[in-house]
């Protein structure tokens, strides 16, 4: 397999883009990435998306976007792994270029969620879970995470308020990201008083949905020179793993085994350890997922992920910087696009483009995208050279 570099990145703001269609949002990020790469053509297009068939009535997103972007006659395909679709598409593009079959690929993660009412979106998101045995019981996607969080608090003795630093850090970092969905600082008091969605998860534990797209152009690393002031960003590792589709089928519902498996494989491939990771863009769809991700990836012992937030270790100046551009919590969670936002944001950190939330001297970063309630997890490690 060939070493791959990220030649260009692009993103739209995550927002309620009433004035823009699915086409226009995806196109905007794609064109931005192509321009950043200085490329006018690529060999293939990979699209990450979860909800377009359910919310926008649109399938065939490969051709849909290659047509819109002007990449006619090329290979183009959509990859779906629920909320993990973005990173799954990135990995598919990566494999195609790394194998030598094609010389360049454009990967776009895109989601247009605000064309339907809230309860319809809630039902669409629930398709990530087991339709016959979870969704049919009336459990929402938030509800599944709430079941995990309630048990976690019971087993390890944490209070709800102990999760506040995760959301506070994400909101503080998003203040400096012009592409973020939410630009408002929050406090412990607000975190505690926020309205309940599914006990114990309230609105400030949960990431907001939104419309958005993020994209990257990837090519063989040998074709990219490191320029002064802009290091070459290469993909040092990529791995994907799965767990059972339903939470109730897991041997241990409080352990993200697919996060553990994919991260472990990435550490081996990149020959690094957790302590070498300068920035970790994890999948904080809910505050509980932050704790479980930190534990499964070796940054905290089991049941102690919450401690990293309380000890102030997760800020850009801390030992384990996470959600440096706002994370899912405050940058927003346009589900099928999220994995590509994470890749773009880690690339921004490695290029040193993050201003007030820049992690000093960041050379190695990790992005981890979760599909379903831990069912499908894709991890990437990027390196600056």
């Amino acid at each position, binding site marked *: 397999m060939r070493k791959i570099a990220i030649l260009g990145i692009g993103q739209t703001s995550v927002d309620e883009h009433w004035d823009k269609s699915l086409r226009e949002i995806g196109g905007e990020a794609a064109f931005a990435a192509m321009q950043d790469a200085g490329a006018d053509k690529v060999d293939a297009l990979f699209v990450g998306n979860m909800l377009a068939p359910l919310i926008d009535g649109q399938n065939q997103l490969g051709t849909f976007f290659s047509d819109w972007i002007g990449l006619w006659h090329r290979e183009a395909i959509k990859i779906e792994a629920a909320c993990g679709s973005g990173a799954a598409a990135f990995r598919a593009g990566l494999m195609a270029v790394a194998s030598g079959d094609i010389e360049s690929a454009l990967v776009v993660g895109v989601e247009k969620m605000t064309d339907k009412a809230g309860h319809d979106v809630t*039902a669409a998101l629930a398709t990530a879970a087991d339709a016959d045995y979870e969704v*049919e019981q009336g459990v929402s996607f938030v509800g599944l995470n709430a079941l*995990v969080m*309630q*048990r976690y608090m019971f087993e390890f003795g944490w209070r709800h308020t102990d999760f506040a630093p995760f959301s506070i850090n994400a909101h503080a970092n998003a203040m400096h990201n012009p592409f973020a969905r939410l630009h408002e600082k929050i406090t412990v008091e607000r975190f505690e008083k926020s309205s309940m969605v599914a*006990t114990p998860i309230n609105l400030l534990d949960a990431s907001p949905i939104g419309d958005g797209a993020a994209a990257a152009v990837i090519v063989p690393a040998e074709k990219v020179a490191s320029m002064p002031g802009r290091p070459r960003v290469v993909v040092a590792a990529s791995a994907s793993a799965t767990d059972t589709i339903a939470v*109730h089928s897991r041997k241990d519902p409080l352990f993200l085994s697919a996060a553990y498996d994919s991260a472990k494989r990435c550490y081996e491939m990149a020959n690094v350890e957790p302590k070498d990771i300068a920035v970790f863009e994890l999948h904080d769809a809910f505050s509980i997922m932050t704790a479980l991700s930190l534990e499964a990836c070796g940054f905290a012992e089991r049941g102690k992920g919450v401690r990293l937030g309380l000890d102030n270790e997760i800020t850009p100046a801390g030992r384990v910087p996470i959600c440096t551009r706002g994370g899912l919590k405050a940058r927003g969670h346009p589900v099928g696009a999220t994995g590509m936002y994470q890749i773009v944001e880690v690339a921004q950190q490695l290029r040193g483009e993050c201003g007030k939330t820049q992690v000093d001297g960041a050379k190695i970063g990790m992005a981890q995208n979760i599909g379903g309630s831990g069912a499908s997890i894709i991890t990437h490690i990027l390196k600056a050279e």
Partner: protein
Amino acid sequence: MEIPRHWRLKQQRYSLVGEVCPHCDNKIFPPRDVCPNCGGEAKELYAFSGKGEVYSYTTIYEAPSGFDTSAPYTVALVKLEEGPMVTAQLTDLDNTPVEIGMPVEMVTRKMRNDGDERGIIVYGYKFRRRT
């Protein structure tokens, strides 16, 4: 409306019928073709007692479409006596607090209307406090 699907799931929904692995005696719910314990083929039916305890629970305030009129309602992960865990609503709570470890038993209840008011009424398992 998804009539064949409701019909297909009737044994599970009305009688909590899962499977027992002929190789390792592992009890399985929901039914699946491969035993998660030993990896062997598992297709032998097994009716669960319906008794278990609450492993975790949540009260849902923002419900998916189809369940809006029921909110708020409480969903639990119920650990069945025979081993497996099942996701199900708790019912007949009468505003008494739910606790992890609370003993529960399966009952048959209305789940929702599939479609509008003329749609079929879907029945299935819920769990209530066991005394």
